[in-house]
């Protein structure tokens, strides 16, 4: 029976990258690593969560004594001196493990608050441990609960929904304007790093076609190939304004490349279909007067940065909501675990006392001789109520979720001894 739920690990806040990389467990190493942890004495179940930001060993064990051997094993595995490693490690127990895992899977402990990838990484760690048969009942329940809570946090708070980088902010705005980006066309003017990144994100979102115009036609062709798009000359920009839905400008030109008259004509040709213009260049390439034209939405680099900053602030606000959900869920899960753990002992206890009651009752009835049905019922009720009253406090104590795990285990053993349970 596992008495201890423990987590030994380090993350981007507690350890520098050179320590993290030495302890990192790749996907291929998972099976062997889990087998090593599981073979340590006293460990019933184990799982490893290893990402670029954290390496954590989660175990259920017979006692907390296993912490020593886990730290030694990590130190040996990473080739980091034990004293050095201890400076970066955190060791969590029982309820803190639940809270930590719920927070991690929900993205609340991530470098970028609310980032969604971590949810998938926790799930992958669970599946990997499950495949290696490294989990016991306790860890299985913990991981299932972790993924349920993470989903709940994301659904109820929407913490991961808002972009916190400039390129993603552009994609988010494009989605706010067009909804589905599949089937849309984009025009990329210039080949700045940020515009490339933005185009890449938009392309991943399912754009139909990207046209690239650059001062160097060769560079335009290279970029177009990368996005499976088409290179165009600067002279062809205006006709493409009429067919493209998104324009990303990032040229080195010291003047405006797109003027209000261009957009006016394009919108007319587009039958007033919306046009989204993103100006990532400094000095700006798109005349800001275009922002006042109906049907055209113009965002420059500062606007996008403001969107990203506002989203970061929004995520922080949502994190407060998320923390409340996590706290509530930890409490619920802890109560459920305690009750579930206590059930076998309670059932055995009830069966043992019922067996004594019915046996003694039969003996008594034989001695009494014939009695009426009402009298028998009264005696039955009396003995049953006595048994229930005797059991009341032991059951209450067994279900007490506020007690520490080792206290509960000690109580369970004591009760089993007193009542002579196997």
């Amino acid at each position, binding site marked *: 029976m596992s008495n201890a739920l423990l987590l030994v690990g380090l993350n981007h806040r507690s350890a520098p990258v050179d320590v993290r990389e030495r302890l990192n467990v790749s996907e291929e190493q998972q099976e062997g690593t889990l087998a090593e942890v599981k073979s340590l004495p006293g460990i019933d179940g184990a799982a490893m969560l290893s990402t670029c930001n954290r390496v954590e060993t989660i175990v259920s064990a017979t006692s907390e004594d296993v912490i020593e051997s886990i730290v030694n094993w990590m130190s040996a595995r990473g080739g980091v001196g034990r004293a050095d490693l201890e400076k970066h490690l955190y060791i969590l127990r029982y309820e803190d493990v639940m809270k930590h895992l719920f927070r991690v899977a929900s993205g609340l402990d991530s470098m970028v608050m609310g980032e969604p990838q971590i949810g998938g990484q926790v799930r992958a760690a669970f599946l990997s441990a499950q495949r290696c048969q490294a989990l016991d009942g306790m860890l299985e329940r913990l991981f299932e609960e972790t993924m349920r809570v993470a989903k709940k946090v994301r*659904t*109820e*708070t*929407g913490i991961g929904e808002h972009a916190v980088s400039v390129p993603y902010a552009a994609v988010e*705005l494009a*989605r*706010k*304007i*067009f*909804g*589905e980006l599949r089937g849309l066309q984009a025009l990329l003017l210039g080949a700045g790093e940020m515009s490339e990144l933005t185009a890449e994100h938009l392309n991943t979102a399912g754009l139909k076609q990207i046209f690239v115009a650059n001062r160097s036609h060769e560079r335009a062709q290279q970029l177009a190939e990368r996005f499976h798009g088409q290179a165009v000359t600067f002279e062809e920009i205006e006709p493409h304004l009429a067919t493209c839905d998104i324009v990303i400008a990032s040229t080195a030109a010291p003047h405006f490349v797109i003027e209000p008259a261009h957009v006016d004509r394009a919108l007319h040709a587009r*039958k*007033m*279909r*919306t046009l989204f213009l993103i100006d990532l260049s400094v000095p700006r390439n798109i005349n800001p007067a275009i*922002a006042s034209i*109906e*049907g055209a*939405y113009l*965002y420059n680099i500062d*606007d996008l940065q*403001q*969107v990203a900053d*506002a989203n970061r602030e929004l995520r922080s*606000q*949502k994190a407060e*909501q998320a923390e409340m959900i996590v706290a509530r869920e930890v409490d619920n899960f802890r109560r459920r675990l305690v009750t579930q753990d206590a059930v076998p002992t309670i059932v055995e206890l009830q069966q043992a006392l019922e067996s004594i009651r019915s046996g003694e009752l039969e003996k008594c009835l034989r001695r009494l001789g014939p009695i009426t049905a009402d009298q028998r019922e009264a005696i039955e009720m009396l003995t049953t109520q006595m048994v229930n009253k005797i059991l009341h406090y032991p059951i209450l104590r067994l279900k007490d979720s506020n007690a520490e795990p080792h206290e509960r285990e000690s109580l369970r053993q004591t009760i089993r001894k007193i009542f002579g349970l196997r």
Partner: protein
Amino acid sequence: MTPNLTLYIALGFYAAGTVMALVSLFTREMRTQHLGLGLMIAGWLSHTFWIGTICVRTGHPPLTNLPEAASFIAWTVFLAEMVLFFRYRVHAASFFVYPLVLMLLTVTAVVREPFAQMDPALRSGLFTTHVFLSTVGVAALLVGLAFTALAFVQDRALKSKQRGPLWEWIPSLDVCRTIGYHTLAVGFSIYTLGILAGILWSYRTTAELIDLRVKQIGGVVAWVLFAMLLQSFISGAYRARRTVVISACAFVAILIAMLGIHHV
């Protein structure tokens, strides 16, 4: 009409659902928004039961006077909202549609008129068609107005680069525009057919094409305004402030037409 228990239950649920939706606007909690939707659905089921009761008692749909028509429009508006919600997941529409449904059913509960048994002379298929199509058309137009408002709010937020409180709840501009345009187009077609059926029925019964009372004037003015609104969607001018003015006027005209409904 004697409002009975199921009507008040529906009203209670609608009120609670509307409050929850408006609370979610400030708390930004999806759970509160979903709770609001759940309460509104409970109200709608109770509302459906009440409409069924009237049908059984009078032998015809509840469309013969103002409270009944208001109730039926509220019922249809929420039905349309549910369909659109489950198709597009537009949460923001709740901030417009729920209060509208609540307001319409409050009219039903407050304006007490006896259950109207339809005059046998009016029991023609043409009259029923007129009332039914007009009511359904108005319901669709009201939903269309709600989405036009959402499209406008979204457009302003994108233009000004200032997120309002509705930013998170409103879907993309294109989705708002598409739903707004489609519901207006469908609603306008049905409403037009309803008006034509009414004119024909009026001609058959009174030998007059139109009787210039508040109801008819309001109805025709609303029809013209909705035609202008639809045209602005087709031309792409729906983003202009003019559209908001037309929408507001169309809403008022529809309300006037509805308030003009008396016993037939």
